[in-house]
C-alpha cells in the first residue's frame, strides 16, 4: 500500500514537471560581434518581463528568451479551448559591436543574456521587470519600474533607477571619472563599493535611514533663504551631502520608502 502511494506520488510529480516544461517556450540565439576582440554595448528594452545578464569568457552574445507566464492559457470560451499565445516577437540586431534587443510590449518574456565580460549595458524593463546582472565590467545603466535591480560582481560605473523594488549593487572596481546614481521609491538602496572608494555622495531617504561603514565626512545641510513681502523663508535641503576618501565625482543615492546602505567591500 505504501509503495503504491509512493509510485503515484512520483507519477504525479513527473506529470507536473512535464506540463511545466511544455508551458515554457524557449528560444536561443547566438549573436556574433563585428569585432570580437573589442568591448561592446548591449541595449535591451523589455516592457513585460525580466532581464538577467551574465558576463562570461566567450566572445559572442548569447540570448535565451523564455515565455512561460500564461496565467489564463487553459481558459475556454464558447466551449473552445484556448491556444496559448506563444509568439515572442523579438528582434535583435548587431552593428559595430552594439547589440540591440527589443520585443513587442504585450508579450511577456524573460531574457537570459550572456555577454563578454567587458561589455557596457543599457537595460530597461517595466512590468514584472526584475533586472539582474553579474560579472560584467563596463558602463551599466539599468532602468526598471515594477521590479528590483540586483547587480553583483560588476565593475565600471552604474546608473540604476527603479520605482517598486530595491537596488542592490556590489561593485568590485569603479571608474572614478564617471558619476553614478542609485534611485528608487519603494525599496532599499544597498550598495557595496571597493574599500578604496573616493567620492562625493548625495543621499536622501524620506522615510528611511542612511547607514554606512565608510568614514564619511558629512557637510552641513544647505540652507536656502528667500524673502517675499518682507518675510523670510528658510529651507533646509532634504539631501545629505558627504565625502568619502578624497572625494571625486558625485554619487547619488535616493529612496522614499527604504533605507540607504553604503557598504565597504
Amino acid at each position, binding site marked *: 500500500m505504501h509503495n503504491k502511494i509512493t509510485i503515484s506520488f512520483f507519477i504525479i510529480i513527473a506529470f507536473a514537471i512535464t506540463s511545466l516544461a511544455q508551458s515554457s*517556450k524557449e*528560444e536561443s*540565439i547566438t*549573436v*556574433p560581434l*563585428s569585432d570580437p576582440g573589442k568591448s561592446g554595448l548591449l541595449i535591451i528594452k523589455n516592457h513585460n518581463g525580466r532581464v538577467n545578464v551574465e558576463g562570461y569568457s566567450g566572445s559572442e552574445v548569447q540570448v535565451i*528568451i523564455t515565455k512561460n507566464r500564461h496565467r489564463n492559457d487553459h*481558459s*475556454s*470560451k*464558447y*466551449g*473552445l*479551448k*484556448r*491556444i*496559448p*499565445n*506563444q*509568439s*515572442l*516577437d*523579438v*528582434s*535583435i*540586431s*548587431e*552593428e*559595430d559591436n552594439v547589440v540591440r534587443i527589443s520585443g*513587442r510590449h*504585450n508579450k511577456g518574456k524573460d531574457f537570459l543574456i550572456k555577454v563578454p565580460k567587458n561589455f557596457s549595458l543599457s537595460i530597461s524593463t517595466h512590468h514584472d521587470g526584475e533586472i539582474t546582472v553579474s560579472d560584467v565590467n563596463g558602463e551599466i545603466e539599468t532602468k526598471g519600474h515594477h521590479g528590483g535591480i540586483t547587480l553583483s560582481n560588476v565593475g565600471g560605473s552604474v546608473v540604476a533607477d527603479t520605482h517598486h523594488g530595491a537596488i542592490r549593487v556590489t561593485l568590485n572596481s569603479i571608474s572614478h571619472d564617471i558619476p553614478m546614481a542609485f534611485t528608487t521609491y519603494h525599496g532599499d538602496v544597498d550598495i557595496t563599493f571597493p574599500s578604496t572608494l573616493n567620492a562625493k555622495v548625495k543621499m536622501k531617504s524620506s522615510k528611511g535611514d542612511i547607514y554606512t561603514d565608510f568614514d564619511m565626512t558629512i557637510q552641513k545641510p544647505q540652507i536656502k533663504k528667500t524673502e517675499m513681502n518682507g518675510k523670510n523663508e528658510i529651507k533646509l535641503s532634504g539631501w545629505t551631502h558627504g565625502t568619502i576618501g578624497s572625494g571625486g565625482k558625485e554619487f547619488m543615492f535616493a529612496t522614499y520608502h527604504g533605507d540607504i546602505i553604503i557598504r565597504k567591500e
Partner: protein
Amino acid sequence: MKLTYYIPLILIALITSTGLCSTKYSDIKKLEMEVGDYAQVLLFNKYGEVNVTGISGTKAYLKVTRTLEAKSKEALEKVKDEVYLDTMVLEDHLYYFIQNPYSILEIEEIGGIAHYNSRDSGKWRWSNNGERDVKYIFSFEVQMPMNIDFRVSTHKEDLRVNNMRGRLNASAHFGDIYLKGVKNLESVSGHHGKISVQFAANPSIDGKYRTHHGSIELEFPSTPSADVSMSSYHGKFFTDFDWKPIPFKTTKENNNRGTKYKIGSNTIVRMGNGRTKMSLKTHHGDMYIRKSS
C-alpha cells in the same frame, strides 16, 4: 427681446439638424451579364453594403440601389449624371465599379486590390467642389456564378458573400465581413469590423485573414489541414480542433550595417497534416477556429 434675438439661431439649428437643406434621390439599376468567359470578376463599391450569392450558370445579376443626397437640386441633378455604376474590362478581367469624377478607382495591379483615390469619409462637408457637396450610397444585391474567380470590396458598410466556391478575395474597411458556404478563400481584409467565415469545404489554397479592430471567426466542416499562423496584440486564440505547436520561426538578415534577427512574431500551430497555410492577424480582437455546427 432676448427671445427675438435667439429665434433666427434656433431656426438655423433646426434646419441644419433636420437636413432640410438637402434633397434626396434614389433609383434601382438591374444588370445582367454573361461573365463565364472572364478570368476574374471584380466588384469595388465605396459607400454601401454588398450582398453576394453564388449561383449556378455563367451569368451575373446585379441589383444596385443608388441613393444620392445633395445640398441643392442643381447639385443633385449633377451628381445623377456624374456618379453611377459602371463596368470595364481590363485584359480578361471584368470590373464593376462606381464612376465618379472626384473619386477615381486606382488599380495597382490588374486582378488585385484597387482603391478609390478620394479619402472622403462620406460625411457632409459644405465646400463648393465635387463630391464633397453630395453623399452617395450604392447597395448591391449580386448573384454571381459560384465557381468564378471573384474579388469584392466595399469601403463603408458590411460585406456578405454566400455560396461562392471559386477563388475569393473579400475586403471591407469600415464594416463587418460575413462569408458563408465559401471554399477557396484567398484573402479577407477588414479594419474596423469583424471577420466571420463558414467554409462549405476545407480550403485547398493558402488563406490570409486580416483585420484590426475586430475578431476573426472561422468555421470548418472538419479539421482543416493547415499550418495556422496567428497574431493578435490584445486578443486570444480559441479552437475545438486538435493542434500541435510548431517551432518558432527565426529569420536572419545580413546587410552592410550588420545582422538582424527576427524571432517568433506569430503563434503557429499545425492542424491536421498542415497541407495549406492560414495566416490570421488582428490587433484588438480574439480568434476562433471551430467545427461547423
